[in-house]
């Protein structure tokens, strides 16, 4: 296995303790730091996402893989020349709607978005519609992700989308919903969200599509 392939496998298998050493070996051998991230680590996370989507792996496996990638990125960051920082493909503000404290699903979406190159700001759970709008404005979000696991969240999802439509951000921010309580019919057709995704992999796909970023 090549040094770079070993990095990919370490991310997939969640070998967080090995990753720094493996990245160092690859760099010492002359590998391009950007290429390690884009060509191997992000590819690894794509595979992890696909396994999660297929229910071959579960929450802990996905979390450890994302952590492993993060540890690898931490080694690479200082090596990337100023002005040549790791390119972010978009800014996403993610939260769980008011009244709902479920967080694991949202946090997984955050992890996968981050490892796919998005800048993600996780604004937590129990988020009011005002806070969603305010944070999106303050952080200049391209996309706002709303997670809802409880059907009690339906009116809050709706009012948050309405708040965006009434605000100066209308049309400027893409609104994407997900979580077990949400259906595409409700979020997109009834409330007017821009997108809906069934899981973390789908979330990356949908957000990239909305921002017209190649898959």
């Amino acid at each position, binding site marked *: 296995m090549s040094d770079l392939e070993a990095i990919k496998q370490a991310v997939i298998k*969640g070998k*967080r*303790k090995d990753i720094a050493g493996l990245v160092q070996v690859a760099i010492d051998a002359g590998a391009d730091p950007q290429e390690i991230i884009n060509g191997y680590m992000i590819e690894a996370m794509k595979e992890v996402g696909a396994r999660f989507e297929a*229910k071959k*792996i*579960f*929450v*802990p*496996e996905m*979390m*450890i893989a994302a*952590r492993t990638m993060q540890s690898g990125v931490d080694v690479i960051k200082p090596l990337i020349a100023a002005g040549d920082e790791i390119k972010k493909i978009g800014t996403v503000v993610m939260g769980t709607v008011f*009244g709902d*404290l479920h*967080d*694991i699903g949202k*946090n997984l979406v955050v992890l996968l978005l981050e490892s796919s190159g998005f800048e993600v700001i996780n604004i937590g759970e129990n988020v009011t519609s005002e806070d969603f709008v305010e944070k999106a404005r303050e952080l200049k979000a391209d996309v706002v992700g709303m997670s809802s696991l*409880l*059907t*009690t969240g*339906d009116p809050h999802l709706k009012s948050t989308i309405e708040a965006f439509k009434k605000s100066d951000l209308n049309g400027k921010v893409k609104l994407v919903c997900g979580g*077990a*309580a949400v*259906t595409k*019919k*409700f979020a997109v057709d009834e409330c007017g969200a821009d997108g809906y995704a069934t899981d973390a992999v789908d979330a990356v796909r949908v957000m990239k599509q909305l921002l017209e970023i190649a898959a």
Partner: protein
Amino acid sequence: MGNTKHIPLGVGFYPDWWYKNYGISFGREYYYDADYRVDSQAKMQKILYDRFGDVGLGNKDPEPKPLITFGMAMLPAICGCEIIFKDDALPWAMPLNLSKEACDKLTLPDLITASPMKEMLEQITHLKSKYGKVVGDINTTGVQNLALKLRGDEFYIDMYEDPEFCHRLLNLCTQSMIALWQLVYPLTGSGAADVTPMCDPSIYCVANCTVEQISGDTYLEFGLPYDNILGETLQPFGIHHCGSLDAVAEHYAKVKNLVFMEAGFGTDFARARRLLGPHIAFNARISPVLMKNGSTEDIAAAVKDAIDQGAPRENYSIDTVGLTHGVPDENVRIARRTVEEYGIIS
């Protein structure tokens, strides 16, 4: 239809349904004031009768029900989690996100003196003197549920990087749950009511809500050993599993003294029932999301499907809980009528 036996179908409304429709609050008072709770319970039974008496729900003249409950929050609260009470929601324990060192310093709590169990014991004394009995129990929550409340999501990373730590914490959680059950069960004779109404209350039922998030292998390593300790110590034993059972059903079949299994929506009920065997009472849950958003045809189809998957029909039940404000009444009616007509036990 009256005397024909059919598969039972339970219905449970979420606090926001009660609060938004009838102003019945599930705030702090509901859990700390026994008289308020008994009074609310009677009102709720009467309301159900008035609204859904035609499909057999509720009670026209309810007897006072001297009930105890603390949501799923008792042990987390005793361990120091902040509990958020709301008029229109179930109580929620905020995770402590303790360091591994802090977790390792935790010891078995003294339940009799620890708040809010101390207050709950006072409520029990009060209810017993007023009504001569107490019903219900205190949900012990599940082993992994409790570990996650103490350590936070980091616990999932620990599973990879420090499994011995995980086992120490899971063991402490298990022992705390046993201690809670051993304190409450002799007082009420009930060990499942606070988890699910579909389980025979005389057995002990554990709430394995977060097991939905892990694989079968992870359950084998970090779940099964502890469920077996519970099953051996507090037998007969039941498990409530919140989401899809598919990843763990074959391993649940190995749990000692298991007599009851509840499976969330998304489960392949037929497969799970086959793996577990017909001797294990099985409750299949219909999605509250479908109940809110589906048409009556969708609901009837989901109930029929659950019935078809459940064979044999003995020892099998269906329920739909967590029904929130906005669930159409007709969806509740059609669910109940479908089991009456289609779920006959021959």
